[in-house]
């Protein structure tokens, strides 16, 4: 008899069937991963286990007994806690207050027992080996630390089942390592950990079992010994993705599109020099905080450059704002699509024309409705945005992968010569990811210069023709991507300054 069993769960929202007859067994003391494309139903399933949604039919059994949970508090009662993808930290309160929010230790008359609060929080952080000052203001801590606080918050309620929804998407490599150490620790303590992620390498590394969801059904559960990347992908997308990455450049011209010469921005990056030619994809690799996004911002005119010069096809330029850059055909697809990329409460059509309004307006001033529609429909087809009649859908209602495609549509509609893409596949499922990589290659083959910023090494190696390696605001080397290995790149990133000179 399994510890937690979900039994023939079905769930619909309106006419939209999200989960169909899902059954999975979970055991104590295991890390059980859930994987599936965006919209496959992972988050819905977790919300049902966590008591946020109720299943239409089917039941949840704990140690053989059916349990019914109507809200997260009842789920806690059953020993189930969720760490959501979007953290719910109160930024202006201390770490300890966040851990014990709503069940602070109290004294007589309901006054908070501050001493005990901080001592208890310290004990909780100790339990998971997190090095956090309970008195620190939560908002000043790194995302990784905030996540530790969130985990402590859930664990402080004495849970046996810990659900983590895409916990690593915003973490640096070090923070991910630390998280995994904690998860393995908790597993040893006999807790059940349900881990949702898009990253196959993480899943195969730490899980004991992996269950794959596709279109609201469970296509199977794999044990550790059968956990092969190709198998998992096949179960996820229902077909083999033969070539995860597109072929390399057909013809790289030597015509320089964009050159940076010794550009610096105080406190962000210094003395960067590189060239990007038409027809090639230049990958810029670096860990979080390497100064890649900052560099792109400065080139794009969203920030200043303190020293150095940028050349566009050999002509010196300095963009005072993004509008000037876009006019010259330099476009920047931002890494955080919701915060600074898309207008989530506006429609797909409005988003698509946002950066090219002039081109869909008569005399540049009055909107030509048909032109805007045609343009958008063209991109919906070309980029295979789902659903295909989403012209007037709010972007908020699309899945992550499709939102990313809308962001691509917005920038392709602006007709760039040089396209800067910042983490183009973050939070996107395998299918959409492969598609985006192929699009980038197609654009480069059509003559565009593509500058791809990424912190995912496999992506950098799989897609780029040339790799700029960044570390702590400096360029540590520019490597041709011929038989380049992950090790080569990492070695370059961490090589000593003296050696570099």
């Amino acid at each position, binding site marked *: 008899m399994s510890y937690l069993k979900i039994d023939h769960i079905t769930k619909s929202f*309106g006419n939209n069937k999200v989960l169909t007859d899902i059954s999975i067994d979970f055991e104590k003391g295991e890390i059980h991963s859930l994987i599936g494309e965006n919209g496959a139903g992972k988050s819905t399933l977790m919300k049902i286990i966590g008591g946020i949604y109720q299943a239409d039919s089917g039941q949840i059994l704990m140690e053989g007994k059916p349990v019914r949970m109507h809200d997260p508090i009842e789920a806690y009662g059953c020993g189930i806690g969720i760490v959501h993808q979007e953290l719910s930290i109160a930024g202006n309160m201390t770490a300890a207050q966040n851990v014990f929010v709503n069940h602070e230790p109290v004294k007589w008359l309901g006054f908070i027992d501050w001493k005990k609060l901080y001592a208890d929080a310290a004990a909780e952080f100790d339990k998971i080996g997190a090095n956090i000052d309970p008195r620190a203001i939560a908002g000043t801590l790194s995302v990784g630390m905030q996540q530790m606080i969130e985990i402590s918050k859930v664990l402080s309620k004495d849970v046996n089942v810990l659900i983590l929804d895409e916990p690593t998407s915003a973490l640096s490599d070090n923070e991910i390592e630390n998280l995994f150490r904690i998860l393995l620790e908790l597993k040893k303590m006999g807790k059940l950990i349900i881990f949702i992620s898009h990253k196959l390498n993480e899943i195969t590394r730490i899980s004991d079992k992996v269950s794959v969801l596709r279109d609201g059904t469970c296509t199977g559960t794999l044990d550790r010994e059968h956990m092969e990347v190709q198998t998992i992908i096949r179960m996820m997308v229902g077909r083999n993705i033969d070539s995860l990455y597109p072929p390399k450049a057909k013809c790289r011209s030597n015509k320089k599109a964009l050159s940076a010469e010794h550009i610096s921005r105080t406190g962000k990056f210094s003395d960067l020099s590189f060239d990007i030619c038409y027809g090639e994809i230049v990958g810029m690799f670096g860990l979080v905080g390497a100064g890649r996004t900052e560099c792109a911002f400065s080139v*794009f005119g969203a920030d200043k450059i303190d020293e150095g010069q940028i050349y566009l096809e050999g002509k010196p330029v300095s963009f005072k*704002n993004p509008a000037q850059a876009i006019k010259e055909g330099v476009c920047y697809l931002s890494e955080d699509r919701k*915060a600074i990329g898309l*207008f989530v*409460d506006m429609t797909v*059509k*409005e988003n698509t024309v946002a*950066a090219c309004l002039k081109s869909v307006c008569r005399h540049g*001033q009055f909107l030509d409705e048909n032109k805007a529609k045609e343009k958008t429909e063209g991109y919906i087809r070309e980029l295979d945005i789902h659903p295909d009649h989403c012209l007037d859908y709010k972007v908020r209602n699309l899945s992550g992968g499709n939102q990313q495609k809308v962001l691509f549509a917005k920038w392709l509609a602006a007709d760039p010569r040089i396209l800067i893409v910042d983490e183009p596949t973050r939070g996107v499922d395998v299918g959409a990811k492969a598609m985006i990589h192929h699009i980038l290659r197609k654009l480069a083959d059509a003559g565009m210069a593509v500058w791809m910023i990424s912190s995912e090494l496999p992506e950098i190696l799989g897609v780029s023709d040339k790799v700029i390696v960044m570390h702590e605001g400096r360029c540590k080397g520019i490597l041709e991507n011929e038989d380049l290995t992950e090790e080569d790149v990492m070695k370059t990133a961490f090589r000593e300054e003296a050696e570099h000179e």
Partner: protein
Amino acid sequence: MNKRERIFSVKQINFHYLVLLLLILIVTVVMAVRSPYFLTGSNLQVLIDTFIMEAIMALGMTMVIISGGIDLTIAGILPFSSIVLALLLMNKVPFAAAVLLVLLAAAVIGTITNTLRRSLHLHPMVVTMAIAAVLKGVDLTITGGSAISGLPDSFVRLGSVRILGMPVSWIVYIILAIIFLYFSKNNRWFLQVFFVGGNEDAARLSGIKVEALYRNVYIISASLAAVAGILTAITYSSASYSYGTNADLRVITTVAIGGTSLTHGGSGSVAGTLLGTLFMAIIYNAFVMSGISTYYQDVVTGAFLILAVLLSEGIKVLKERKS
């Protein structure tokens, strides 16, 4: 595919329009039954005249609110403009020049509003409230608390000019309303206001010159308040610090009733504001007709403001539940 479908789809707020139209209809029918004078020409004229200044300012306020801001300066600019105009005219400045100077002053105030907002990183509510207070103080200081009358005859005569049987203020409003209605759906600059209200950072990275846009939005709002001030002076042939008292509340309520969201920018419409204007004008008139003290008007305006927010947010919540 409907050719009349516009990019900032009217579809999503259609339900809101229907509710408003229904309310307007109900109030009209009830009033027409209760009072035989309600639907007479002279009452309709009163109905329009009492709310025409708010109607003009609501056009600019709609754009401010869609951009994600708010403008309380209008209640200060309206009387200020009437007073400045009166003083200029009494000092023998030609009418056209005086009007231009007043509009210029309003544009400067709009620019100051935006500059303060941007450089001090203050919420527009705080900045515009402060500027409105300063202007009201200036008004009182200049006039010493009494109305300015005895304006040149040529100006006084403007008050009784009728074009196609309508006073100047009506004509001005009709022209402005048509321009705003058409431009807000089709003009590139107006469309950018929606983008900036929807997501300022994304708009900036999409090549929209956000700061210039904010500045222009506040200039437009201030200028329309000045137009209202000038028209008020024409209507009453005088200028006073007391013109436009609480106009900010009435104008914001009108815009909110029309379905433009006060809680987040990027959504709303001029068409909605026009309906909201009609609704508010009828309600105020219904008060007068029913003999309810005008003192209660602000009570009801406040209540409507809450109702409007509930209505638009409620529809949103219902829709999200459905999808």
